[in-house]
């Protein structure tokens, strides 16, 4: 980035070439959600009962456990990208930007890890 010509002053600013990846990742995870979330909702709606034994036995089976873990990865990434765009639109001061940057780069990973550990515990026994 130089400070001579007009183009030299703005080159390298903006999306820093991550814009396309952000856009595509958002779309890819949207397609994933289109399969995963209806699977979760239909499964929950059609369950004969919502007591502990029934729900736990369902979540412990390989397919639902896999879907739940994929939700922890796919849906959290999708949410992370969307929340990031929202924050970029509304937060303009430097301090707020740092807080937002910390939020979207830490919280989703912490949440997803907690969710995955929970599903693994359900699927592999323990409680």
């Amino acid at each position: 980035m130089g400070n001579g010509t007009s183009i030299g002053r703005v080159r390298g600013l903006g999306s820093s070439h991550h814009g396309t990846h952000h856009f595509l990742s958002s779309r890819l995870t949207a397609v994933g959600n289109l399969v995963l979330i209806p699977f979760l909702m239909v499964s929950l709606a059609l369950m004969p009962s919502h007591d502990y034994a029934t729900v736990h036995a369902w979540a412990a089976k390989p397919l639902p456990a896999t879907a739940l873990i994929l939700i922890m990865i796919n849906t959290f990434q999708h949410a992370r990208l969307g929340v990031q765009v929202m924050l970029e639109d509304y937060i303009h001061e430097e301090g707020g930007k740092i807080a937002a940057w910390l939020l979207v780069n830490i919280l989703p990973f912490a949440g997803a890890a907690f969710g995955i550990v929970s599903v693994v515990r359900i699927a592999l026994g323990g409680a």
Partner: protein
Amino acid sequence: MAQAPGKRPLSPHLEIWRWGPAMLVSILHRITGNGLAFAGLGLLLWWVSALAGGPESYQTFLDWVWLAPAGGLQSVTALLGKVVLVGLTWAFFQHMATGIRHFVLDIGAGYELEANARWSSLTILFSVAATSVFWAVVLLHPSL
């Protein structure tokens, strides 16, 4: 002098506009998306971790979010839980429908004024209908 004559139109007009279907579903997409991200994923984590914690912690989740056997504060949170859960299902269906609309717009289709307004309105019709069907199935099913 080089002064602009008065009453010249200013552009863009940031404060002069009226609601239309496209702008309504655009802001709904953002509101439902962020609602799902915070309330939806938060509740999902509470649910799955309560389930991982064993029968007692799962029962605590059910009591506070839906059943309210203890009354008092629990009946308030359980009412809130029902409102939030129904709201989240609607938010999901709305976000899904406007998300599919975005896929269509991504390929460059659906920008004609009439088609754009029609499909925008249809996403709301869909989300309300799908939410009703979903909860009809849940509640008419022998559960809880």
